[in-house]
């Protein structure tokens, strides 16, 4: 389970996240949405241990990761699958090697690599392109490679930062189907996006941030039995903000 308790993060005078509270049960699928600069990426970076919160606690699988010492961060990340808008694949490595790197990082025995890599490449439909280099792949394929690398370590939680941001609608749709498939396998998915079409299409729990404050947590939808919301705030943006402020007070 992932839980944010009164998390605040400031960069100088700018408050990137302001007293954010929510929790995501195992196997949940949650969109983090909001306009640019609302704190979506900051939230993901906090989970990934890239930055530390100024206040509050972030609990991941029972462990307070906001207080994790730097030398424990790599171990934390080895249990998180991470997918980026710009794919972040190793350009000099083949598709297979890109996925294998993640296994090398977690220190898995080489004997187990082939079976695992074949499985995830099959899942993301890249098996036939396993010896291709990233420069030979299309945008959607690169994102699928990024997903394969995230999945191969068998993480409990997958963080995706605007994974469809660089893709056309058709490709983005396919990628989202893949995310749905992964979620059905029991993986928790936390996806930052401002793509309303995708959010509406997927009908999953949505946490909306504005200027660092949580203004909406759409909570449980009829078709999302894995997400449990604590806060459901609806109404105009102004009303949402006021409600959040009064709740914080």
């Amino acid at each position, binding site marked *: 389970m992932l839980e944010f308790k009164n998390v605040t993060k400031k960069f100088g005078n700018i408050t990137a996240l302001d007293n954010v509270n929510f929790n995501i049960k195992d196997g949940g699928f949650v969109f983090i949405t909001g306009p640019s600069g609302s704190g979506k990426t900051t939230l993901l970076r906090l989970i*990934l241990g*890239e930055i530390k919160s100024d206040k509050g606690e972030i609990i991941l699988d029972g462990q307070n990761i906001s207080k994790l010492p730097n030398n424990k961060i*790599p*171990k*934390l*990340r*080895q*249990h*998180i699958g*991470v997918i*980026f808008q710009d794919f*972040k*694949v*190793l350009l*000099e490595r083949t598709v297979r090697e890109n996925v*294998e*790197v*993640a296994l*090398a*990082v*977690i*220190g898995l025995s*080489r004997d187990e690599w082939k079976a695992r890599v074949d499985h995830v490449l099959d899942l993301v439909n890249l098996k036939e392109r396993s010896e291709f280099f990233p420069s030979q792949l299309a945008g959607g394929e690169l994102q699928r490679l990024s997903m394969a*690398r995230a999945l191969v*370590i068998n993480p409990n939680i997958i963080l995706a930062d605007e994974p469809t941001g660089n893709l056309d609608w058709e490709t983005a749709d396919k990628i989202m189907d893949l995310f749905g498939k992964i979620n059905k396998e029991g993986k928790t998915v936390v996806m930052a996006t401002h793509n309303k079409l995708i959010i509406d299409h997927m009908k999953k729990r949505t946490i909306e941030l504005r200027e660092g404050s949580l203004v909406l947590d759409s909570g449980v939808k009829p078709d999302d039995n894995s997400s449990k919301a604590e806060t459901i705030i609806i109404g105009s943006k102004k009303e949402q903000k006021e409600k959040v402020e009064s709740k914080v007070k």
Partner: protein
Amino acid sequence: MVNIHLKTAGDHIRRSPFQAAAAVFVLAVTFFVVTFLAVLTHSSDQVIKYFETRPQVIAFLKDDAKSEDISALKAKLEADTRVDSVSYVSKEQALEIYKKATSDNPLLSELVSPSIFPASLEFSLVNLYHAQAVIDEVKGDAIVDQVGYTASLGDDESLNDVVTRLRNLTWYLRLGGGAFAFFLVGTSFLVLMVIIGMRMTTRRGEIEILDLIGATPGFIRSPIILEAVIYAVTGVFLGWLLAFLLVLYSTPSLIGYFGDVPVLPRNTMQLFWLFGSILAIELIAGLILAVSGSILAVSRVKRKK
């Protein structure tokens, strides 16, 4: 695991062959000079040792010296810790030595009889610095007529002078050579650091990705350190090999020129042992250089980040 790091290091070298060549070249030049200096140091030590262990002092005995007195003096010298070895040369042996020395002119040897050559005690010293004190003591013995340095080396002071000059030369060689080697090693260290730093900069994107997917600092550093180690091992080996081949090529001339003075081992196995030892020490030094240089470069680039 090592395979993936080796592959990464190999890829980096292949991608920037000129940087790799520059690193290897600088290290090869450094270790070529270091190998030569090591051989020179060894040779100068051997030369000093050679001269120091030659019979250096001759105590000419009086004609009426009794054999028991001679034996007593010999035993006294043998017991002296400053004296390395003592030998007795009788009048007859002295004549034989003279005959050998004048073999190209038989007339000279026919004109002399053993009686004109004094018997003597020849001895070498552990360290020539003790020479004067030992000579003064031996001079005081009743059966000793005269004491001098080995005649073949010239007058009384010559051997002492030769060894002192050799010692000074060796000292300057070590000091100057050491300073030069230090300068070259420092240059190699800087070149390695610069090249590794450039690698780190060009690999920043890759390092960021590895960092985000949970790679430990050790995992990220490994291919960089391995790359530096490859440079160091190749550079050390090339520098050493070049010096070794040159020494092998010139060994017959050197041995011919220096004669009995063992500037280089005459035995092939000993020569290989000497160069093997130099290579082993240089490899260790190269590895220390590579690992410390790359770790320093990595930490500097990380600090800048």
